[in-house]
Structures are given as structure tokens and as C-alpha cells.
């Protein structure tokens, strides 16, 4: 954003934010955006009159997430909530197919197709878009598209918002994924005091922008947005090494740090639940009470769960050391083999939502200490 297309940037005054949502609703989209629920920012349907929360910041430190007030009274001062796009493309629980059994015992299998829902999400971050690109690489793999994921993905409209106030847990600048969105959105906004610099990233996004009849953003506004992104990047205190970590981590599989982190880790799976790139899921069957049918569902799963490595009569990863090592080495090392890049987009959710505050950047630093 604000680079290749900045010459075509419009300016959306604050008062016109509701008309953007109205435009999307007119086009048949269900509008999801930030709402405050149980003390966190979560993406929920925004009903008219458009009422986005304003002046809310999300203070995040290891093991801690608290909403506080933003002195600048911005709409998008919160850096991230526990979830953004993932539950809307890769459903936490859904039926894949069902089977019916008649009196003769014969089985009739049928695929279950999710209903078509056109969703627009306002307020996704650069890290979320980078994570979505990785989920796309997994679920829309050439020749093996996941029909359920694809159906939701094909009907998604994304309005990204530049992160101006990163949390202390954020490190997207070091992974190259933020804080300013550069790709993967339909519309991208940068929030200034009196409105938003807006650019389109797709034809649908351009059509929405055209219908809003915005004035061009001034060069001062564009420069203010650029500087805001640069300051947000500079404000980040955590980081991952910029180099490829695969060989560093895979050569330290017996490092004593794995035992040390395993002693703190509760194996609760919070990190994998909030991670926007984790894709593991279990498949399970739920028979109807009358015995005449059964649903085959998939449900988000975690490599920290005991069942994840279960194999007829023994567990491949029986201890927490093995599970933490599996998670970290997959995310930062073997992800490169599978998808050509690391599986971490620097959102810091795993740090904030870990009940004991385990910090992945700290673990990586300890594991690779002394390596070039």
C-alpha cells in the first residue's frame, strides 16, 4: 500500500466510514469488523447503524492482553485480537461429509457443502494478510483445493488497515510482513486524525472506491501515512532473526533449551489456536442418536494435544518437549520446505495468549545463541 498505487489513493473522511460499510452491504456482503467482546477485540458482524468501537488500544505483553483507551481516539488503535481472518476461511468446526445407513446396512455417503456466505472483513492487518497467503498455499494447493476453504475464500472481501500502534508483542517488521499492508487486500486504509488514506488492491476494491466518490489523497496525507508505518515498524522491540532459521534450528534438535521450555509450557494449545497460520485439524465422527446417520467433521487441532502424535498403541511425541519442538521447528524451520518461507508472520499472538508468557522470539534467541 501507499507505494505502487499511492498515486491512485483516495481520502475517506471519518464521517464517511459508514458509507463504506453500506457500499459493501449493498453488494451483498455481510460486514465483519472489530467489536469488543469479553475484553478483547473480535471480528463480529457490524450491524447498521455502523458502530465501530473507537479509542481502544490493545495492550499486549507475554501472557497478557488488556484493552485500554487510546488518547488519539482512533478506530484502529488496537493492534490485533486473538483471531482475525482464519476462522472465516478455515472454520473451527465443520462437517465434511455425512453418511446414512438404511435397514439393510447399506451406506450412502454424501459431501456436505457449506452455505455460500459473502463476507467482508474490515480491520485485518498486514500480518493477517501474510498469514492468509500461507493458508491459501496450504488449502488451495494446486490440484488439491480444499472445497470448503475455497468456497469461503472466493467470497471474501478484505479491508486491511495499517497498524499504527503495534503491541509490545508485535514483530512483523522483522518477518517482513508489516506493519503496512502491501498485498492481498481488496482495500487498504491508513488511519489519520481526520480520515483514511484508501487504496484498492483488486478490481472489486477499485469498484467500491469508485462508488464512494472520494477526493484524491493529498501528498501530505500519503506522506503522513507512510511515516506512520515507518514509526510503527521502528517502535517494535521484538524480532526474529532475518535469516533463514531452518538449518540453525534443525541442527539443535537436542539442545537443552527444549527441556527448559517444556518445563514451563502447559501444552494448552492456546498458541496454535491463535496462530493465524496453524492449519492442523482433527477429523471426527458424530453419529445421530437414532443410528441412521453420521457426520464426519473436522475440528481445529493442536500439535500440543496428546492425541496429535498418537499412533496405534504409542505416542510419537509423548512429552511436551517433543511437542514444543514440533511446533517451533515446523513453524520456523520445516515450513520453508513446505511453503518456501517461514510460517511466522510476526503477529505475536502466541506470546500474548500464552498463559505462562512463553515468548517465541526469546526461545529462538536461546536456541540459536552463538550461531552466525
Amino acid at each position, binding site marked *: 500500500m501507499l507505494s505502487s498505487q499511492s498515486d491512485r489513493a483516495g481520502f475517506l473522511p471519518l464521517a464517511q466510514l459508514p458509507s463504506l460499510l453500506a457500499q459493501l452491504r449493498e453488494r451483498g456482503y455481510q460486514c465483519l469488523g472489530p467489536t469488543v467482546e469479553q475484553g478483547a477485540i473480535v471480528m463480529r458482524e457490524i450491524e447498521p447503524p455502523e458502530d465501530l468501537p473507537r479509542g481502544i488500544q490493545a495492550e499486549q505483553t507475554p501472557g497478557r492482553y488488556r484493552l485500554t483507551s487510546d488518547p488519539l481516539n482512533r478506530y484502529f488503535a488496537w493492534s490485533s485480537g486473538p483471531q482475525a481472518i482464519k476462522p472465516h476461511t478455515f472454520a473451527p468446526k465443520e462437517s465434511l461429509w455425512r453418511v446414512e445407513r438404511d435397514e439393510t446396512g*447399506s451406506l450412502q455417503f454424501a459431501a456436505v457443502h457449506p452455505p455460500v456466505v459473502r463476507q467482508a472483513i474490515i480491520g485485518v492487518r498486514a500480518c493477517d494478510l501474510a498469514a492468509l497467503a500461507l493458508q491459501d498455499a496450504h488449502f488451495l494447493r494446486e490440484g488439491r483445493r480444499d472445497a470448503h476453504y475455497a468456497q469461503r475464500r472466493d467470497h471474501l472481501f478484505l479491508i486491511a488497515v495499517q497498524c499504527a500502534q503495534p503491541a509490545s508483542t508485535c514483530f512483523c517488521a522483522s518477518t517482513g510482513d508489516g506493519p503496512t499492508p502491501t498485498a492481498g487486500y481488496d482495500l487498504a486504509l491508513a488511519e489519520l486524525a481526520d480520515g483514511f488514506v484508501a487504496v484498492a488492491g483488486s478490481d472489486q476494491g477499485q469498484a467500491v472506491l469508485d462508488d464512494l466518490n472520494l477526493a484524491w489523497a493529498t501528498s501530505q496525507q500519503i506522506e503522513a501515512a507512510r511515516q506512520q508505518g515507518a514509526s510503527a515498524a521502528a517502535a517494535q522491540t521484538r524480532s526474529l532473526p532475518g535469516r533463514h532459521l531452518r538449518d540453525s534450528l534443525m541442527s539443535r534438535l537436542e539442545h537443552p533449551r527444549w527441556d527448559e521450555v517444556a518445563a514451563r509450557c502447559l501444552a494448552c494449545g492456546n498458541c496454535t489456536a491463535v496462530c493465524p497460520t496453524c*492449519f492442523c485439524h482433527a477429523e471426527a465422527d458424530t453419529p445421530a442418536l437414532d443410528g441412521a446417520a453420521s457426520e464426519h467433521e*473436522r475440528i481445529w487441532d493442536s500439535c500440543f494435544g496428546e492425541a496429535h502424535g498418537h499412533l496405534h498403541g504409542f505416542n510419537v*511425541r509423548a512429552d511436551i518437549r517433543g511437542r514444543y519442538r514440533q511446533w517451533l521447528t515446523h513453524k520456523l524451520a520445516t515450513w520453508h520446505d513446505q511453503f518456501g518461507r517461514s510460517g511466522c508472520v510476526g503477529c505475536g499472538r502466541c506470546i500474548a495468549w500464552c498463559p505462562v508468557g512463553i515468548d517465541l522470539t526469546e526461545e529462538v534467541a536461546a536456541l540459536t545463541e552463538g550461531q552466525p
Partner: protein
Amino acid sequence: MNASNRLDAGPPHAATVLARIQESPTIFTLQLRLDDAAAQAAYRFAPGQFNMLYLYGVGEVPISVMSDPEERDLIGHTIRALGRVTRGLAALKPGDRVGLRGPFGRGWPLQEVGGCDVVLVTGGLGCAPVVSVIHYVLRRRERFGKLVIIQGVKHAEDLIWREQYDRWAKLPDTQVLVAASEGAPLWPWHVGRVTELFSLANFDPGCAVAMMCGPEGMMRSAADALLARGLPESRLYLSMERNMQCAVGRCGHCQFGGAFVCRDGPVFNWGEVKPLLAHKGF
């Protein structure tokens, strides 16, 4: 069964149990036929590939196909009754229905053998994925050199297909070496570790392909023994086992380093997995 069905995550095809054979107290074989005649006629698999078998209302398990690839009327699976699904499958009778999707994964590199010797090393129920290789070789005997079948079991009574081993041992250019860690009265084979038999194996290390299946510790020892005999690493293959739920490289349970065992395996070249096999808990 068209290509898109085979590759997708489901739903399965309905199949009927034609026969159920008790192989040992806990091991049984199900012979299945897809209810859709066209799907059955179109079903093809390569030795080493697996199917997902679905027990109504309970769930799915990955089971390698052990029947002969040229046997077009049935699909055979040998299963040990251990978990919720397999214990339920063990209770099925002829005429009962299951679901089946597959085949999945990469099978054994039979095209690479090219007239050389075939060494099969199996432990425990690991014999099931390679029995289809034995059938494959015996049906195309002129294309292969010597066939060496090395099988290890923990207890003598665990050995299934005992008559078949006796029969194979009598065939020309075929050697059968069986070991049980714990013997039994009238046990005709070796008592001890299966790796103690490798010095007796009669094959040309310069022109052979070895295929292993079984517990990872056994395969590591077997690999050491075969490589010590001079077999090049590039000619050594193994079949891996991991938790598999989707079978199409999506659910994530079977990941072994960067590989999805269900999709990139279950058969791997030794060199592909050797570095990680050394680390327990991967």
C-alpha cells in the same frame, strides 16, 4: 472412482466385506469390494499405498493395501485390532459395509529395481505393506533377480501367513529368513533379533533394492546392516507410519520434518528421512 474423488478428502465409497480371515489372535484380513461396480473396476493401486477405511459412526483408519494389484475383484487389508476403529472392524462379518477412500501416498519404487535383487525387511505387522510387493514380484518373476524376505516378530505366535512363508521359501531364487525374539515349541526359524540374519541374506549389494517396514528402531538397525553389506543408500527404502486423518496432506498430523507422510510417503528413500529418524519424538 475418478481421479478427483481419489485425491479429495472424501466422502468415501461404500464397500462390502466379502470375507474376513483371522490371521492371528489380534490380526485379521478384510477382503472388500466397492459397491459401485464401476468404481471397483477402475480402482488401481501401487504396492505400498494405503486406503482410509471408515467404520460407520466411529471413524477412519489408514490401512495399507495388501492384496495383489492385479486382483481386480477385491481390495485386501490386513489389520491389527488395537483401537476404537480397528476393534470395530474386527467385529465385521461378510456382507457388512464399510467406507473406503484411496489409494493414497507414494508406493514402493518397483520400477527402479530393473532386474536386480529385491530385499524385503519387515517387523511385526510391517509385513502387510510388503506382501503386495511379494505378490508383485512373484507374478512378474522374470523381471526381478533374487527375492529375499526377512521378517522379524516379537513372539513366535505373532507370525502370520506362516504357510505362505513356507511356500515362498521353496520357490527358486527366493530366500526366507524369519526370526522371533521369543520362540515357541516347534518354531522352525531363528530365535533372536532379526538383524542377526542379515549376514545370511543372499543378494548382490551392487544390484539390489531393499524395502523396509516396521518399528523405526528395527528399521534403523536393518539399515545399518544393509549399508554395511555394501548396499548404496539410494537403493534403500522404508515405509513410515504416522497419525493420519485426512490422507491428503492437509490435517497436519503425519508431518515428519517438512514431509507429509500421507502424501509425500509413506514410502521414502532412506536418505530423505535418515537425519530425523535419529531424533526420538519427531
